[in-house]
């Protein structure tokens, strides 16, 4: 997880990456110095990435009619807090935040745990049928599970789970991608000798997993956890189907807020709500941005 390239050999990854970067930097200077154009393009990308959020903040901190200003407003106003309070009054945003936190945390813990367990078995244990089962995991990665939403909805309705958080959590408990991802990581990271040594010392299979595999898997577990959490937090279609308006997730609450104005939506209110829905992940992003980038660059997530 530490090295930002895909070709790095697994031995001493941190050291190796540092060395490589140092070497590359010195070497590149000769022919590859980025110019004005490069920084200009990056600046444009930065503005493009942040403008929609900035503009939401501008309108969210003003009054709705300010969207009509010519030229358009680009400086924030004083009303952000007032508008935020109105968001919490219009929809049950506090409940939505709590619900999304519970849903995302439960799904993350489950996916990370079961993926590590199965990924470890596929990477390091020998058993009959291993290759075929691993192929099955890879094949299921390509299936968009969304396509099963109709029977899944019927199941939830049958068991009277619609409207409960369980209806959102259960379909997210495992992913084929997680298993494959952990397997790819653990295959490199744990030397077979280490597992054999633990076995020689009389450790049980579970003990070996718990004391040898789990500590080694931690960096990959963190990255898988981050992406799983984000995917659960941003999911919309399934929560929309099974969670009613009285028990919303952040996304369904925001959609309800967006629809609340009918033909004359209150833009300031809606954009403040959009920003509030982004803030939790924004904080996570600021803290863990480096790991996210490393994770994507290692191919942590399929698009």
């Amino acid at each position, binding site marked *: 997880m530490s090295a930002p390239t895909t070709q790095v050999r697994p031995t001493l990854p941190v050291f190796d990456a540092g060395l490589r970067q140092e070497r590359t930097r010195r070497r590149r200077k000769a022919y590859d110095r980025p110019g004005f154009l490069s920084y200009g393009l990056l600046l444009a990308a930065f503005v493009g*990435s942040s403008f929609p959020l900035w503009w939401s903040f501008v309108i969210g901190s003003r009054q709705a009619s300010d969207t009509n200003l010519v030229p358009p407003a680009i400086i924030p106003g004083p009303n952000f807090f007032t508008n935020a309070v109105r968001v919490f009054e219009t929809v049950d945003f506090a409940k939505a935040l709590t619900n999304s936190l519970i849903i995302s945390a439960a799904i993350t813990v489950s996916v990370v745990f079961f993926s590590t367990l199965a990924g470890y078995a596929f990477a390091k244990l020998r058993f009959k049928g291993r290759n075929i089962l691993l192929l099955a995991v890879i094949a299921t990665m390509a299936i968009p599970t969304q396509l099963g939403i109709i029977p899944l909805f019927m199941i939830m309705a049958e068991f009277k789970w619609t409207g409960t958080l369980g209806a959102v959590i259960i379909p997210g408990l495992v992913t084929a991608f997680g298993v494959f991802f952990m397997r790819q990581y653990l295959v490199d990271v744990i030397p077979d000798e280490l597992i054999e040594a633990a076995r020689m010392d009389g450790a049980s299979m579970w003990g070996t997993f718990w004391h040898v595999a789990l500590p080694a898997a931690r960096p990959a577990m963190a990255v898988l956890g981050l992406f799983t959490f984000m995917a659960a937090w941003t999911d919309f279609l399934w929560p929309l189907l099974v969670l009613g308006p009285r028990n919303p997730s952040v996304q369904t609450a925001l959609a309800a807020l967006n629809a609340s104005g009918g033909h004359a939506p209150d833009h300031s209110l809606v954009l403040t709500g959009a920003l509030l829905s982004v803030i939790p992940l924004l904080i996570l992003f600021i803290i863990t941005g480096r790991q996210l980038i490393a994770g994507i660059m290692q191919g942590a997530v399929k698009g």
Partner: protein
Amino acid sequence: MSTTTRARTQSSDLSTRQKLARLDFKAAPYLYVSPFFILFAIIGLFPIAYTMTVSLHDWHLLKGQGDFVGFDNYASVLADPFFWNAFGNTISIFLLSAVPQVIVATIIAAVLDQAIKASTFWRMSVLLPYIVAPVAVAVIFTQVFSQYHGPIAGFFDIIGVDPIRWDFDPIPSHIAIASMVNWRWTGYNALILLAAMQAVPRDVYESAAIDGAGRLRRFWSITIPMIRPTLIFVIITSTIGGLQIFAEPKLFDTRTNGGSNRQFQTIVLYLYELAFPRRDFGRAAATAWILFVIIILAGLINFAISKAIRTADVRPSRKATLAIAQSQGAKR
């Protein structure tokens, strides 16, 4: 003789603890992989398979299972002009998003693949949109692409262009929705492509530079061929994602399911409308399977095209899974 006897005695004399250890050794792997397979069978495979059963029946959301009708649901969906309208819209939005997205992502990746100062800052800034959920993106962009107010309308007003009816005319609405997808995913894909670019040995660039190859020449003749498997991976994943977009068109006009004239109704939105407002689960399930087939076909077409235009200097990869595996960091 004596040795065999001793061995046999020993093996039958294995202590309970040793037997348990052996059982542990044999059974543990299956125990570790079984939670995944059991849960996946319940929440993944069964629903998809059962979708087939539902699709072969008259099936109403409230009344439940009706008569077996064979492939009638498929026939009626495929004969429905609204389905083909949704199909066309999906393809149009997909093309408007995938093509610019891949091009811009490749350019950003190439810029980042230099000795850039503050590289973490730039990388984080291009990734920022990825953390904004599709619902929030749709809400924000609906305001940005407003006909009479918002920054785009304001800009058009200043330069004296007539306002565009973003939520009414088909192509402008497709552009608005594609912009939402592009905004969220371009930086993400740029980072995947950047990873592939960084795996290209620097010596190759160096010797090309010494031989007098300019920056553009190096990009076309070295970078692009070398990152081709990752490029294919990015295109395939954005195809799979692009064919399934829902939140963006759903929220672009909250009062309808894809516009007053269905001018931006996508296939998943069509499926949603059949299943919930219209409560026709049979046809919705048929639509799900049709979409599944479309996704697989799109993947195969992508793969065939990329195979056809592959240049001689790139080693052919054996399977689509390999291309995915490589981009997932399996390359060792």
